[in-house]
């Protein structure tokens, strides 16, 4: 009888064991795959510092906005590589009647950015020093700790009335005690110290949390010679074009792929600033899904490093930076106007708003813009004159679907004519760097002649897109690589 009892207990324990395990399966699912087709290794054991833990709370706190409806994560969505979760050119503000003036960048791969400097060192260790570094599209935030104050206090973004309003929110937040633990029990007695600590905490979070720099793309497998990283022929052709600054696309000249600052690698940026002459994002563009509201005012012209948001090099002033170019010796009156920061290309393939003003919504458009900006400006800029009774059909990727026969395109329509000498004429846009090292029109670099042959074919552009697809984080190599389809052969 006792034996029978033991047997009964034994069976009962088996049942409990079996079904108890099932009940907690959601916990296991965070780290396991169980799939032969790939999966994630267990997450690295990362213990965030107290400051970073506070930063994490702040990052997702919608109360840190005037309307209590917008967190950092609202526009820098972790599910979208800390970039915008939609294709809007610019995002709406906490006050929904307001809209931003620039496209939201991804926050990934930012912590290694040096502070802005007019003569910043280039990470390639070769190229002569040039404007580089800093945060925001114009480098006007020095560090990741000072950057958050800009969106927090901007009326068209998070719209907090003052630093004091931010501090008050933090003091009453669920994480106030953690904040004090991280920054001192008396931190709330000093409003300035508290506001600065908000920035410090957000910086710590972005520096310490590995999701801000996961290095989990196919390109990372390729660069590390890891299983699953073999590039397809199409991707390899794209990489070769990317790297070829003589006869290819030459992207690497600015989207530098090598070892970078602070131990980073393959960021696809050298943190420099270039004036590309990106079309004005306004209602002149037919069917434009997202013109920037601020551009309805013709007097508003966003010129990047020379303002109006950045204030260190206002044009026509003693601080304009006028003087001979360091390489060519050519005198340039306002060399900073029209220049915006070169962004990382990691995760660019899953973005849907490109350049500082979000005027483009696909990589195909972007690459064709680079390719035909000079040769076919009528694709990208409004035109005047010509025979409007004979409209010429532009290619499907063009911003302007048609142009009057013989019309004159208003190139670089978002940069006043007196600053257009700063326009970058490197490949594939113009004819490339001069023998003297000039890269801009003012420095002697030549544009491509209108209606001359562009640098790249459509096949080249397809291959480049295939390569840029490999820069997307989260790549999971398939068990069996495809043998046909796009980006394969």
């Amino acid at each position, binding site marked *: 009888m006792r034996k029978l009892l033991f047997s009964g207990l*034994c069976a009962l324990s088996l049942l409990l064991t079996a079904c108890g395990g099932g009940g907690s*399966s959601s916990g296991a699912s965070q780290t396991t*795959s169980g799939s032969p087709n790939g999966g994630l290794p267990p997450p690295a054991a990362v213990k965030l510092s107290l400051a970073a833990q506070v930063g994490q709370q702040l990052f997702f706190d919608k109360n840190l906005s005037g309307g209590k409806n917008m967190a950092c994560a609202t526009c820098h969505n972790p*599910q*979208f590589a800390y970039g915008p979760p939609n*294709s809007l050119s610019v995002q709406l503000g906490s006050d929904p009647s307001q809209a931003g003036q620039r496209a939201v960048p991804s926050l990934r791969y930012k912590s290694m950015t040096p502070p802005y400097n007019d003569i910043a060192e280039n990470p390639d260790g070769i190229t002569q020093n040039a404007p580089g570094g800093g945060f925001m599209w114009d480098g006007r935030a020095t560090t990741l700790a000072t950057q958050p104050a800009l969106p927090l206090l901007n009326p068209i973004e998070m719209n907090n009335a003052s630093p004091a309003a931010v501090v008050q929110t933090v003091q009453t937040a669920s994480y106030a005690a953690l904040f004090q633990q991280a920054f001192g029990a008396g931190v709330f007695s000093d409003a300035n110290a508290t506001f600065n600590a908000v920035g410090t905490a957000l910086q710590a979070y972005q520096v310490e949390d590995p999701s801000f720099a996961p290095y989990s793309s196919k390109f990372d497998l390729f660069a590390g010679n890891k299983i699953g990283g073999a590039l397809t022929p199409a991707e390899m052709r794209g990489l070769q074009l990317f790297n070829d600054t003589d006869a290819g696309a030459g992207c690497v000249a600015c989207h530098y792929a090598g070892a970078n600052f602070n131990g980073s690698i393959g960021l696809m940026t050298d943190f420099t600033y270039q004036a590309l002459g990106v079309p004005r994002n306004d209602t002149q563009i037919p069917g434009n899904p997202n013109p920037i509201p601020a551009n309805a005012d013709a007097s508003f012209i966003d010129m990047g490093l020379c303002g109006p948001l950045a204030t260190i090099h206002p044009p026509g002033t003693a601080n304009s930076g006028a003087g001979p170019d360091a390489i060519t010796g050519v005198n340039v009156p306002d060399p900073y106007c029209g220049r915006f920061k070169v962004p990382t290309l990691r995760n660019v393939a899953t973005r*849907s708003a490109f350049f500082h003003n979000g005027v483009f919504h696909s990589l195909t458009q972007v690459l064709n813009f680079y390719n035909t900006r000079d040769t076919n400006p009528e694709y990208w800029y409004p035109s005047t004159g010509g025979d409007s009774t004979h409209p010429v059909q532009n290619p499907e990727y063009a911003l302007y679907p048609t142009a009057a026969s013989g019309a004159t395109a208003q190139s670089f329509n978002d940069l006043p004519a007196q600053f257009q000498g700063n326009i970058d004429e490197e490949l594939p846009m113009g004819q490339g760097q001069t023998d003297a090292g000039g890269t801009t029109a003012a420095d002697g670099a030549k544009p491509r002649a209108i209606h001359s042959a562009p640098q790249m074919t459509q096949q080249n552009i397809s291959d480049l897109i295939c390569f840029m*697809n490999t820069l997307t984080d*989260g790549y999971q190599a398939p068990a069996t690589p495809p043998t046909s389809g796009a*980006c394969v052969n």
Partner: protein
Amino acid sequence: MTRRTTAVRLACGAAALISLTLFAAGCHDKSQDVSRENFTATINDFLAKRGHLCLAKYDWPIYVTADDMAAGTRDAVQMPVLEKLGLVSGQNMVVGRTDEAGKKITANARQYQLTEEGKKYYLNIPEVVQTATSKVTHPGDFCAATLTLDKVVGWERPAQVEGKLATSVIYTYKIDPAPWARNPDAQRVFPMIKRVVEGAGTMQLREGVYLTADGWVADEVFQR
């Protein structure tokens, strides 16, 4: 007796260990896994429900006034093309409204209604349009194409987001445009169509997903 009891205990323990392994595997809920299989099913389900490329023409009829035509508004450019394609029919009329001061304003306009052919492309599927701070649900929309999954490219490491275990799935798509959506004029006035059509097979999309008791579910919105 003691020895025998110990033996039973040992046997029971051994059996329990074996059973633990077997049952843990048997009861393991695979729907919770981070796997290509699950995310493929999630995106297939998402695209079946939300994978329509629609054009933000929620409410009909649509009126285009003389001022709209002069200003070249979106509807003023797009509606004549849809009319030419037989999807809408237009009729000139005078429309009126009352302004904020209570004054009646009239304007010459063209009213556009969906034709029987056009109604085939008006899908009564709720469509959620989400911006940073608002979410608006429209009961239906005029749609130009349907997306289906090409392949899941990858997914990111799941993390807790606002109390839910969330990640994003990266995928490419196939597209089946409506016959009229292949028309060059239609693609000219609806640039979104041509961008999405040209990106089939190569343009990578992200979809946020989160874990539920029933497995991974796509975020409600087809955000664009």
